[in-house]
């Protein structure tokens, strides 16, 4: 861990938060009927997979899960020095008339979610879209809010939040780093 980082969630806290969110999703939707999970690349995908496992454990139902890549829907393509990498969207089921649970790791300005909603609407017309995020760090620039939040984490603009997951980073933790350019 870098010296300017502080752990705000460890592996156990992440586990507990996701289990709670899974229960909330099931309670709010009264079960799994028409429910589908769509994870936003890249860490949203891992979180969506974990939620699917928990829902399976609780309800015994395998909820369909897909992946959405928002790269082609970003509003800052021409402003980014690094050309973003397109890794593709995989939604192997019809989303018409489904209750889509959109999943991401961090909710910040809302621009990623805006892009994801645009991308999702190109695939069909879901009955509803609900948003799950592991961390809500505030500083919204668009009128977007999450329906299910693992942890609300008030931050300063000059801080950054890093979600590390076993699947991509080898360990589960959420850290807040001070003094980084955002």
């Amino acid at each position: 861990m870098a010296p300017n980082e502080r752990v705000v969630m460890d592996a156990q806290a992440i586990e507990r938060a996701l289990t709670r969110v899974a229960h909330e999703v099931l309670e709010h939707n009264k079960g799994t009927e028409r429910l589908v999970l769509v994870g936003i690349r890249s860490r949203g995908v891992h979180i969506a997979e974990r939620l699917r496992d928990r829902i399976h454990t609780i309800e015994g139902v395998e909820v369909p899960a897909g992946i959405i890549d928002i790269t082609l829907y970003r509003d800052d393509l021409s402003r980014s020095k690094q050309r973003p990498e397109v890794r593709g969207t995989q939604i192997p089921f019809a989303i018409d008339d489904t209750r889509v649970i959109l999943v991401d790791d961090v909710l910040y300005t809302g621009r990623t979610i805006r892009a994801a909603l645009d991308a999702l609407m190109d695939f069909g017309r879901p009955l509803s879209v609900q948003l799950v995020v592991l961390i809500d760090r505030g500083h919204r620039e668009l009128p977007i809010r999450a329906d299910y939040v693992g942890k609300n984490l008030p931050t300063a603009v000059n801080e950054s939040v890093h979600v590390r997951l076993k699947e991509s980073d080898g360990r589960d933790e959420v850290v807040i780093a001070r003094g980084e350019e955002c």
Partner: protein
Amino acid sequence: MPFTRRHLLGLEDVSSEELTYLLDTALSFKEISEREIKKVPTLRGKTVIGLFYEPSTRTRTSFEIAAKRMSADFVSLSAATSSVTKGETLLDTARNLAAMRPDAIILRHASSGASHFLAAHLDCPIINAGDGAHEHPTQALLDLLTIRERKGRLAGLTVAIIGDILHSRVARSNIFALRTLGASLRLVGPPTLLAPELRTWGEVTTDLSEGVHDADVIMMLRLQLERQGKNFFPTVDEYSRYFCLTERAVSCAKPDVIIMHPGPINRGIEIASDVADGPYSVIMDQVTNGIAVRMAVLYLLIDRAKAEPEVEAETQSQSAAGGMDAPAPRLRRNVG
């Protein structure tokens, strides 16, 4: 980021990392063409000009569809209906078009090096859509993508390129890229259409059966009847007798061989109809992949230099801090 070029003029000096990156990007774009709504907003507000000094159906349509699937505006000009017929030079035409502030110009021209010439004089990205007998990079990229999809790799494959190699810009681009990516080449055709320097690029033979023996890929070339003014072979019938790809010739190749052709096909001259339409043919896959490749090329080349440097520096990678949820006051002001 392995691909940072301003133009795509040819594949001769493109590295294996760049080629792989282009192909990977193209592969990810394929999914868009399979959706019900085949359109993403990525290049909204961008203008692409297609400048076609030679007839073209496939390439022009493919570029146009690619641009439109990314929400760019596409304007196509052909020499026959432009001021070229009034004597305007290529440079003057291009300068006038550049003054209309396009974000990319796609050029097809009968003269080798025409796209290099434009790239030297204009600021906007130039994409070579075929220049004389020089190169046709996007055709080669779609061929590579098709081979990689079917075979899972390019390195170690034996690719037989058959026909009018001397005049073929498709062959040249493919030869450069396939060599870079580690494929073995067999170049097959009549001696008059096999230039001496080809021997440095691959195994050369004038015997069709020998050329296709145990080949993983057979890449047929169109006999460019319009470029045969110097009598490179006695008659088309004789060419066909020795170099037309028939089922009998295909039987010498590997059982899982794939057969490619850049189109348009001269049926019965360089390839028999039953082979062109047969089970080994991937010609239609090539056409489909052409759109994905051209989407990737436009995506990677379209002008991004207008970004303010301070804004660029403030944009974080997608994986950290919630991806593009990583604004800065200036970015906020500009993105709106």
